């Protein structure tokens, strides 16, 4: 298994509170991604990173921000959580070059009450 660790694995919080999810990799891969998975929608890309301090928006980026200060860590922040952000969040990594597969962490189940 690719060395990807997501923390926390489960979190319950209240509407309006800030939440930060962490993704840590030991593979030294350049690219990192955050997805959310919801019933009926599959996985949708929130943000991705193509290097330290280099990030860009995905399909569903509103309400989320990211940071990458080190190659191995990619943080996803919900500045003020809303109930619509209740979801399972997955981090993925991929290497450089064309036709590279992505490797996923085991996800963070986030519930916002």
């Amino acid at each position, binding site marked *: 298994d690719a060395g*990807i660790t997501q923390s926390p694995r489960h979190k319950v919080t209240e509407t309006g509170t800030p939440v930060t999810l962490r993704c840590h990799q030991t593979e030294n891969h350049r*690219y990192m*991604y955050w*997805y959310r998975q919801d019933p*009926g*929608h*599959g*996985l*949708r*890309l929130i943000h*991705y*990173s*193509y290097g330290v301090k280099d990030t*860009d928006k*995905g*399909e569903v980026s509103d309400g989320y921000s990211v940071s990458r200060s080190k190659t191995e860590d990619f943080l996803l922040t919900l500045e003020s959580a809303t109930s619509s952000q209740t979801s399972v969040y*997955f981090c*993925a990594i*991929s290497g*450089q*070059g*064309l*036709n*590279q*597969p*992505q*490797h*996923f*962490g*085991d*996800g963070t189940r986030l519930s916002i009450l």
Partner: protein
Amino acid sequence: SQQGEEDPQALSIQEGENATMNCSYKTSINNLQWYRQNSGRGLVHLILIRSNEREKHSGRLRVTLDTSKKSSSLLITASRAADTASYFCATDMDPNTGTASKLTFGTGTRLQVTL
């Protein structure tokens, strides 16, 4: 927007039978990938087929790609109970090297293999 759509949404078969899942997509792609997800776990990459390939094999898996119909199929032969999982297709539309592969996933096929 959903680029890949899997069909069927759910499939139940007996051990030893073959399972076929289909994926359709809307725009030109660079490659198409299949992933498996066991309950409560992350996605695991199974196979990648490039836009200039028509068929690819990996163990009991066979993937076909028809770019003229914008469709792909995943065949699992001689299914086992351990194959029970959700299967997703994902398309990569970016042909450029040196960029992130921003995949677009379908909604998945839930496969149940019974003894």
